[in-house]
Every structure is written in structure tokens, then in C-alpha cells.
């Protein structure tokens, strides 16, 4: 039963990915789509951390920053291929998450929020201040991984927009598949159990600290890969990727769509990524609108968009 629901959700996601381009008014929208998928990937990680395990982070953009700058720095200073740099970034983020997660996750509620916030600020400060290495607030360029050339050799001619639309979509599908696997597995169930009651979870044998740490590390990997893909497709990166606003965006997207739901999180990412691209007004007031969205969702749809809609439909069926 759980497995059928998993495949339905993945099929819906895949269908949307394939069908959407037919409605694109211009090729510019491939870029918007790619950005949605990259953001959604990070949000799926937040769904695991917040929705499954019930922990909060206001600093996950820090991991996105590490992933992004790994792709910018490693090719330049270590001569690493950008694709391998993505993996190096993920490993770095994972190890760092493991190290800081252990002490931080003992905290609860807003204490945890503040501690993770501190981590995010630290990363973005390092990236901003290490001018010699990172170019400081002006950012730095990211080497082209040469994917287009490789595909052209194989006989596939893709525009830059199409290429990154495809790559990000595949990354999102894999990320969603993994998150849905986790949901219905012993580990995912242990995370969701401790979300429901830490005391009860521990009395059925769940090592609460260990499972929280796992959720934290896994979500950091998602954020890191998301940051890497963002850097690679933009060909340029600034410390904003690790900034506080980006962390808040991740949480807001997850909460807007439905924090327990992979598809919901993706929907949240789609809405909040598209709006500023389509309505320039929104771009100017992005922070204001984010704040307003957060407040309204919390008041009217505490479960998030998708679960609330699903519930309404189910209510009608019965």
C-alpha cells in the first residue's frame, strides 16, 4: 500500500516535469523550471528534517553554500571536475552536519532554531570575508562541467536551459524517490515516531539522538547538492546562497506546501520560486511576501497547502 502511494507521487511529479515545457511561453522558462527543481530538492531535505523528524533548522542555506562553493572552488584550486566537486561538497556538508548536529540537536524548539541560525550566519560570513578565495560579496564564477558538449557528442543537442531543466529534474526525482523510500522504512518510521513522542519512541528502542542526527545529515546532503546544482547552472555564485534569506526560503517553501509531504514541499518550492520571476513587484517585496505567506499559512493552513487540499477532497468523497 505504502509502495503504491510512493509510485503514484513519483509518477505525478515525472508527468508534470515532462508536460510543463509544452506550456512554456518562452525558453526562459526552462531556467525558471530548473530553479524550481533545485529549490525543491533542498525543500525535500527540509521535509525530512522538519516533517519527518520534527526538528527545525534556520541555517540549512549554510550547507547549500558549501555545496555551491565546492563547485566553484574545487575545480579552480584542486583541479577537480565540477561533477566530483559536487560530491566533495556533499561529503563536506555531511561531515560538518555530523559534527555540529551532535551538540546542536540536544536543543529543542527555538533554541535549536537559534543554534542552526548561528551556523548559517557563520558559513555566509566566511564566504563573504574570505575575499582572496571566494571573491567576497561579489561572488565568483563557476566552471562549466561540460555536460552539453558530452551530450552533443552522443548526438543530443540541448540548449543550456533544456540541459539544466533535465539535470535538475532528474536530481529532484531521485531526491523525491529517496525521501519517499525513507518515509515508509524503519529509519523513517523511527524519525516520525520521535516527532510524535520522544519518550515513547525511546521506549520502543529508538535511539532518539541518533535518528535526529541522521535526519539532520541527510537534509544537509540535499541542501548541499541543491547548492551545487544552482552554482553549476548559473555559472556564477555569491554568498547569498548561504544567506539567512535562503534558509528562511527553504523553511517557508516546505511549510507552505505541507511539511510532511514530498509533493507538497515541491509545490511550495514551485510557487515561491515562480512568483518573483513572473511578478517583478513580488521580487522587490520578496521578504515582505515571504513573511506574509508564512503567517497566513500558519493561521489558515497549518498542515500546508497540499495536505489541506487533499483532506478537503477526501472529505468530499466520503
Amino acid at each position, binding site marked *: 500500500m505504502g509502495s503504491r502511494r510512493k509510485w503514484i507521487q513519483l509518477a505525478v511529479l515525472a508527468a508534470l516535469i515532462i508536460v510543463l515545457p509544452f506550456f512554456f511561453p518562452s525558453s526562459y522558462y526552462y531556467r525558471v523550471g530548473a530553479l524550481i527543481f533545485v529549490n525543491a530538492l533542498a525543500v525535500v531535505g527540509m521535509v525530512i528534517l522538519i516533517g519527518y523528524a520534527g526538528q527545525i533548522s534556520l541555517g540549512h542555506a549554510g550547507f547549500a553554500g558549501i555545496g555551491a562553493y565546492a563547485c566553484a572552488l574545487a575545480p579552480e584550486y584542486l583541479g577537480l571536475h565540477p561533477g566530483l566537486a559536487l560530491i566533495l561538497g556533499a561529503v563536506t556538508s555531511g561531515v560538518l552536519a555530523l559534527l555540529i548536529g551532535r551538540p546542536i540537536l540536544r536543543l529543542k524548539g527555538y533554541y535549536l532554531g537559534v543554534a542552526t541560525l548561528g551556523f548559517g550566519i557563520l558559513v555566509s560570513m566566511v564566504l563573504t570575508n574570505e575575499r582572496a578565495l571566494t571573491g567576497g560579496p561579489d561572488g565568483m564564477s563557476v566552471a562549466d562541467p561540460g555536460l552539453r558538449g558530452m551530450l552533443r557528442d552522443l548526438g543530443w543537442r540541448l540548449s543550456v536551459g533544456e540541459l539544466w531543466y533535465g539535470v535538475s529534474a532528474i536530481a529532484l526525482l531521485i531526491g523525491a524517490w529517496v525521501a519517499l523510500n525513507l518515509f515508509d522504512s524503519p529509519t523513517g518510521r523511527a524519525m516520525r515516531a520521535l516527532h510524535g513522542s520522544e519518550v515513547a519512541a525511546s521506549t520502543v528502542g529508538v535511539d532518539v539522538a541518533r535518528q535526529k542526527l541522521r535526519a539532520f545529515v541527510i537534509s544537509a546532503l540535499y541542501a548541499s547538492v541543491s547548492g551545487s546544482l544552482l552554482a553549476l547552472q548559473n555559472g556564477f555564485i555569491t554568498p547569498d546562497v548561504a544567506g539567512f534569506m535562503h534558509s528562511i526560503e527553504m523553511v517557508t517553501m516546505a511549510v507552505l506546501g505541507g511539511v*510532511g509531504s514530498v509533493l507538497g514541499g515541491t509545490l511550495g518550492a514551485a510557487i515561491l520560486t515562480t512568483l518573483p520571476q513572473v511578478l517583478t513587484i513580488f521580487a522587490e517585496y520578496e521578504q515582505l511576501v515571504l513573511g506574509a505567506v508564512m503567517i497566513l499559512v500558519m493561521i489558515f493552513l497549518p498542515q500546508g497547502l497540499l495536505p489541506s487540499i487533499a483532506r478537503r477532497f477526501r472529505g468530499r468523497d466520503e
Partner: protein
Amino acid sequence: MNLLEVKGLGISFGGLKAVDDVSFAVKPGEIVSVIGPNGAGKTTLFNMISGIYLPSRGSVTLKGQDVTGTAPHKLAEMGLSRTFQNLQVFQEMTVLENVLAGYHLRVRGSILADLLSLPSMRRRAATAREGAQALLTRVRLDKAAGQEAGSLSYGALKRLEIARALALNPSILLLDEPAAGCNAVETEEIDHLIAELAASGIAILLVEHDMKLVMRISNHIVVLDHGEKIAEGDPVTVSRNPQVIAAYLGADHAEATHADS
């Protein structure tokens, strides 16, 4: 040999000695009840035995090993399982998933297998699913398996907690007021279930206010009052103890014996 031994156990909250110098033992297959008036310290005692509270004094020994202050999930690994007086159900999970959570120790494997849904994980999950369904049938919740646990009635949630605790395949089970809020039929069912479990060799440590139930099924009773043990022994001895009658049983028990005859 004793399965569980509690020696001189005590804990203080601020100035209040919630439990003080309590000692007793439980053997395999035995039903030991802890009774006492409201606020006597029964739940606090359970919380210390199951590793949720760190005792201020005394020791807990499980299967010959000193486990004082051991974390709850370690005690679960050693075969100690419990239910809660103030329900601790995983509200947002289905009824079946709540019991599956109880299989955690038996089905956990590598995280990679879980993330990639490898066949090894699916095999483990399938075994757990079968066991969980059987347990749900045993507590008459099989029909509700797919429902969200939060939607169940109070009595059903009590039974769900028992099923979840049994999923650990425990050698000792701590039940904190399993019959509270249950009607006469449900109470009877729980009564049978406890007797069955004990007959299968599981030791039961029970806190229950329903004196009829306690007197009927207990092998041994420990009486607490104001955190201290004021009496212990078999049901007949305890029910005749003047201190116990004064502190707690009194009218209640008089009614209970009337109803019995």
C-alpha cells in the same frame, strides 16, 4: 532468579520525595501490581525503572545487570517495554505504523537499505507487517489498521499502546493503568490479555486503580503511599493489612469484595 530488582529506589523533585526507598522484585511470568492513592508515586516509579527519570537514590537491576540510569532505548533492547498512563501514541502515524514502530529493534538495518528501498529492507518490513497485523488482531484493532491513530477512541488507544509494547517481544512489560477509561467489557479483555501474557512467561508490572482487576490477577502487590512502600505481599495479605486499608483500600475494597461474592 529475579528478572527485575528494585532496591532502595528514590527520587526528589525540589524538596518533594516523590518516591523514597522502594524495594521489590519481579520474577519471569509473574504479575506484580503497584497500587496506591493518586500522587503516591507509581508513575514516577515506572519512569525511573524504564530509564526516563534518573533516580536520586537506589538501584534497578534487570536480568542480573545494574541498569540504573540506563537510557530507555537500551532498556528496550534488554527486553523492557512499557505503556503510558497519559497516552503517548504517535498521533500522525497510522494504527499499523504505531505497532510497526514497536518493531524498530527487530527490523532496523542499514540506513542505505532504507534510503534506497533495497530488497533486504523490504523483506524486514514485510515480516514486521505480518507480526504487527497479528498483534492488532490480538487487541481487536485489526480493522482500524489503516486509520490515523489520532482518530481512535481512548480505550482503543490504550489497547494500541499495549500492542506497540508487545511488538518489542519484551520479557517484562510495565503497564501504567491499562484499564483506565475502559468499559467493563474492555477491562475484562485487558484482564484476559494480561493473564495470557503472564502465562506465556512475560513478567508484568502493573499499575491499576481497578481493585477488582488487581486482586484477581496479581501474584504480588506492592503498596505505595506518599512515595513510600507501606506494604507488600499476596492479594489476600495486602487487602487485610490495616495500614493499607487506612491509606487506600478502605471503602473501595469493601465494594470490590462484595461484588465478588
